[in-house]
């Protein structure tokens, strides 16, 4: 199967569906064996981008060092009538390094011409990759150096039992939570088994830098579908909801790779595994 095929047909269906205002259907007819209607609703925010999307080569192997590179994808409309483009707004690279009993993620993000975030996130090597400690720097570049330094945010944080201690630009905050603490970068590796996070009543706190901690996040499995010319590639979608989170889908292929993190105006698309 050519890599291009596995998304093209499903996105062709998406394009046809949204131009006619109908709910998107996975490739194949409703009711066919293994098919579930509406699976690609989760892909709506990246639909135009996905028309020419070529999935990455390579598989995830959390036992070794790897890097995942994502396009940060937006969308633009023709005065609200239809999406006319899904521009790439930036790029995020996540480098994973397994350590004894832990996993470390080194993240570098660039958005637009001037927005950067770099950080290190250390997670436990448990099933959820629970976040143990982190530090990041966020800045908006400017030709005026005094302005650039003014925009810089630095945060470090750690989990100590039920306490979450964060230090932001020198000011410490201590919060208490018994909920597991996660980060988006660890979730990329957990995506292949995200169903394990989808228990009834389970709530998580998720770090969303540079803003901070989002409590009471919940994961649920949403619709599945099959894509590809022969319908042989399955996609599972997992929905994250909670305070300060517009419905966010983690979209995983049959190899457990997190192809998209589909949000609303700004989404991620996996383009390279190194």
């Amino acid at each position: 199967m050519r890599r291009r095929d596995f998304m093209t047909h499903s996105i062709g269906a998406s394009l046809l569906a949204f131009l006619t205002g109908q709910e998107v259907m996975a490739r194949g007819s409703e009711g066919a064996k293994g098919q579930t209607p509406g699976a690609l609703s989760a892909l709506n925010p990246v639909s135009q981008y996905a028309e020419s999307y070529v999935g990455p080569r390579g598989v995830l192997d959390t036992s070794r060092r790897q890097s995942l590179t994502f396009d940060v994808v937006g969308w633009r409309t023709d005065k609200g009538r239809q999406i006319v483009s899904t521009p790439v707004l930036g790029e995020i690279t996540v480098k994973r390094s397994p350590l004894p009993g832990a996993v470390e993620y080194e993240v570098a993000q660039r958005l637009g011409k001037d927005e950067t975030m770099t950080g290190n996130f250390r997670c436990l090597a448990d099933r959820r990759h629970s976040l143990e400690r982190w530090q990041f720097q966020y800045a908006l570049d400017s030709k005026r150096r005094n302005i650039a330094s003014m925009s810089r945010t630095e945060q470090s944080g750690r989990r100590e039992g039920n306490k979450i201690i964060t230090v932001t630009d020198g000011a410490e905050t201590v919060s208490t939570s018994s909920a597991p603490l996660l980060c988006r970068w660890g979730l990329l590796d957990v995506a292949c088994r995200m169903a394990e996070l989808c228990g009834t009543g389970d709530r998580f706190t998720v770090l969303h830098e540079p803003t901070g901690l989002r409590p009471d996040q919940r994961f649920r499995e949403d619709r599945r579908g099959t894509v590809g010319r022969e319908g042989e590639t399955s996609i599972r979608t997992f929905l994250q909801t909670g305070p300060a989170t517009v419905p966010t889908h983690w979209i995983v292929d049959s190899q457990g790779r997190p192809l998209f993190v589909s949000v609303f105006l700004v989404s991620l698309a996996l383009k390279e595994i190194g």
Partner: protein
Amino acid sequence: MATRSSAPNVVFVHVDQMRHDAVSALGNRHVSTPNIDRLVADGTTFLRSYSANPVCCPARASWYTGRASSEHGVIQNQRPLLESVPDLGQWMTARGYGCFYTGKWHIPNRRVDRSFTLLPGGSGHGERGDAGVASVAAGFLHNYDRRKPFFLNVGFLNPHDCCFLTFAPKNPSIKFGLCGLLHDELPPAHGSFNSETGATSREGGRWDAEKVRLYNYYYYRMVEMVDAEVGRVYDALRNSRHAENTLFILTSDHGEMGGQHNLFKKSQFYDAALRVPLVCVFGGRARAGTRDGEHLVSGLDIPATILDYAGLEPMPQMTVARSLRPLLEGKPTKWRDYVVAESNSAGGPRRAVCMKDFKAFLNQDGSASLYSLKDDPLEMRDLARDPKYAEQLGRAREFHNEYVDRITLHPRLKSFGKL
């Protein structure tokens, strides 16, 4: 001239399209706003705060000029601000303040960098841009150490991102497939929503109750996103050397209909679009934990308040604006009996006269609507043709005519006229 020892700093934080009641501390159980809740606990919240004109550009121009739309000329989005009308940035810079701006500005024909020192930050989307704006504002508060007092303006986008939701179904970025999965978590449809006719957005066509509920679910998450950013700025101020000597103001340019009366977005005189949150925090110089539901307040009052605390004279012809300072300090003062809001959206110029217990929508041809806010808070029963309420409607017209006499009309606009 303002000097550091005598004049307070000002942080003016504004969000976009936030409804007055989208605050958990004020009783809304469908949204969680822990940071704005802290402002409510620490300061004075004005429960009867009205936008001067419930659309982005006109409301913002009124914030920064202290003048009504028909005075400064921004009667609709993209209509230009009158060149001769000064703005707060120009006025306060000339009088000794350092004036800084990050985020959304959106006042046509007035470059923000001509009136303020422009800091980086801001994009067309709150989802992407607000975090950067908060970082810049926080960094400013952490690093500013000049002798001049400062006036920092922080313009967040959210929850305005909800405007992009109504592009569906032609632009299906909203995930309508979630209506079923999230059914039990969706906020209920408002009492003024007519499920038989549904709500209509210009781009998106007809929406039934489930879609409207999903829209509001998204909307409240966007409110929560900007709440987190407001919290970062507030925390940065509290942790800085400026904490004790800074007036902190939070408001919104207008609200959001959210399907109420089967309408979306803004440009309406119903409370959902016209009433906005307004919270002022100033350490020992403004009352804490106070919720003022008595006094009628306009967006025009914000610049008057800032200038009052700064010890600076008002800008020319700020004849309608009132400083909120006596209300914040709990001092007895005679206050106004009405607030007028203007609108020039589809259908031509209109006025809203907001009184203590009634609200009138007035049209140029003399027709009107009248609602009893006490007996009909959903604004569903138009009393304008009921003889029992002729007196209230007559009062509204008198108040409007008084307003017309007080403002100085833009030289190139036609007067709305007296009624």
